[in-house]
Every structure is written in C-alpha cells, then in structure tokens.
C-alpha cells in the first residue's frame, strides 16, 4: 500500500503545463538538429585508424621484381589495390607462415572487399627463393597473395628503401641457414601511398577495420 502511495505522489508532482510541453518540444527539436549536424560533420571528418599510421614516412609503393612464370611485376600492376607488403623467406617454417595465415584470415573476413587487397610477399632470401617457389608459397595462403623476388642487389635496394632489416645467418653443415628479418607489414592505398603499419601484435579485428576503410574510403 505504501509503495502505491509513493507512485501517486510522484505522478502528482510531475503534472505538466502547456508551457512545459512547448519548451520540451523546442528542446527536442534543437537536440535533433544538433545530432544531425554532428552526424554530418563526422561523415566529412578524417577516419579513425586502429593501426599505426605511417603516411608521409615511407616512399610510395615502387618496385620491379619477378613472380611466377618469371614474369616481371611492378607497383603499376597493383594500382587501385590496397597492397600489404611483407618481407620474408620461404624456408621460414614458423614466423612467416604464421603471419601469412593470420593475414589470410583477415582477407577471408573482408569477404568481397578482399578483391581490393593484395598481399605481396617479397623474399629477403634471393639465393634460395626462385620466382616459381615464392609464388607457390604465397598462393598456398590464398588467391590474393603474390610472391615476388629480385636479384640480391634489387632486394637490398628495396629493403633499404622501406627500412627493412634482414640478415642471412651462418649456414649449418648441410648448407641450411635462417634469415633474420623485420616482422612488420606495410599497407599502401590504391594510389600507392604508404598508409599503415601492421605489427604482429595487432589484432585481426583492427586490421580488418582499417583495410575495409582503405578499400572503400568514405566520401
């Protein structure tokens, strides 16, 4: 009984006059207009990025390398595509395939947008990696993956240009050797401009978010 009395009390305290209604209507209208204005602003504002932005820190995408069938591939062949540039080597059994598999998962999650993306795997082991081998390796991870390799001098130049460190370690008695190499992936937009850095600690969700934004930029 006491709770019902309480309710009744509150109701009687909230009796609205005609003047109240008018003020509320004006306030609500203003609020809607303000929200609309904010919405319009955010459509034109810069997009937010989850990955590390590198715009202006690296040269535009530029290279001339060999891929499967000993075909020459250059940056011009990838114009209009968002390019993920990753340096590695095919005899790397753990780190490179793990990174490639993670990116393959990202491409899968992108769905139809994945067609606007190419994952370019560039070998830092031109001594062992032939164009055919590096292409077979890349294609094992998905149709959007491309493998490419240059001469020793071309590889050095490209690595210097994109500040990628690599070093072939001392071979064992069988001639097998490991190659130390940078783990980051550079992302270039459809116009070949360096935009983002993917590090191995970045979550797939963040990569998917940013790539989707790069593939179909907002107006």
């Amino acid at each position, binding site marked *: 009984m006491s709770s019902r009395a309480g309710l009744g009390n509150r109701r009687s305290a909230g009796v609205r006059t005609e003047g109240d209604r008018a003020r509320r209507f004006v306030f609500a209208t203003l609020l809607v207009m303000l929200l609309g204005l904010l919405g319009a602003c955010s459509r034109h504002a810069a997009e937010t990025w989850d990955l590390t932005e590198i715009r202006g820190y690296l040269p535009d995408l530029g290279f001339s390398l060999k891929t499967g069938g000993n075909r020459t591939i250059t940056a011009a062949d990838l114009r209009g595509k968002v390019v993920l540039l990753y340096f590695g080597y095919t005899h790397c*059994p*753990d780190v490179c395939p793990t990174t490639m598999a993670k990116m393959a998962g990202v491409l899968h999650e992108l769905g139809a947008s994945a067609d606007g993306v190419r994952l370019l795997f560039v070998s830092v082991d031109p001594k062992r990696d032939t164009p055919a081998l590096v292409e077979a390796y890349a294609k094992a991870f998905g149709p959007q993956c491309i493998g490419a390799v240059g001469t020793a001098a071309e590889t050095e130049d490209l690595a210097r240009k994109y500040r990628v460190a*690599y070093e072939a370690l001392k071979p064992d008695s069988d001639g097998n050797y490991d190659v130390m190499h940078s783990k980051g992936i550079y992302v270039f937009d459809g116009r070949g401009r360096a935009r983002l850095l993917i590090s191995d600690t970045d979550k797939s969700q963040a990569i998917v978010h940013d790539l989707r934004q790069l593939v179909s930029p907002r107006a």
Partner: protein
Amino acid sequence: MTFPRFLALALGLSLSLAFSNAHAAATGAVSAPVETVKPWVRWMPANLPAAGYVTLVNPSKEDVVLAGVSSPDYAEVMLHESYTAADGSAGMRMVDRLTIPAGGRVALAPGGYHLMLMDARHRIEPGDTVVIDLAFADGRHVSVRFPVKPANTRS
C-alpha cells in the same frame, strides 16, 4: 554365486586386464612421459620446411626433458624456437633440451617453440597424417600422429 560362475568371472576379469595391459604397452600409454594435446603440422608447398605444433602436458611429479625429435616421414626434424631480437626482427634458434615441468605444460605453438620438419621422405599433402617421435632424457619416448593441415590454418 556358484563357484564355477565365480571362476568364469575372475578369469574374464584377469583376461581383460591382461589385454588392456598389452594394449597400453603397444601404444606406449603406460610409459608415456607426457600427454600430447592438439598435434598438427602446417603444410608447405614444394617440400619447403614445415612446422609441427603440439602441447606437451606433464601430469607427473617429476620434470621431464625432451631431448630428441625424429620422424619416419622427414629426413630431418629439429626443435626450434622463434624469437624477437632487440631490433624487432624475427629469428630462430635451435633448442637442444626442453623441460616440461612437473604438473605443467609447454606449448609448441605458432611464433614460439616448433618442430622444424625438413626433407619429407615422400609426398605429403594436407589431410595426411605424419608421425613424429619424441625422445626424452630418461630414455622413454612417444610416437605422436600429427594431422597435416593447409598452409593458411590459424592454429
């Protein structure tokens, strides 16, 4: 219970025990130094080196030490560890001995410890199963069947 009935039961019981012991000995289950959880191999094209992953669980009260790895399916198997150098680049190093602590576990997983599998003795494809032998410092060993999965498998 009649005596013949008791005899039949006892005989049956001892027979089944004997069978399970023989079965355990054949699979190495009784003497297995570790339990192996989720073994798998990431397939690589063109007979490139592949990686094997598995979690080793040691339920015993003694540490066990993995001291050797080999395979009837690969000419060379090595225990490796991927690591990140001070400059952020990725490297690999050989691991001679790996201790699985008493009551603990060690994961051979992407980006860390892994079995490097080189020079397959025959053609291996995703969907196949390969065998890797794990030899322990105390002389025990265990043969583990690893399913071979496609290159783009996450984990």
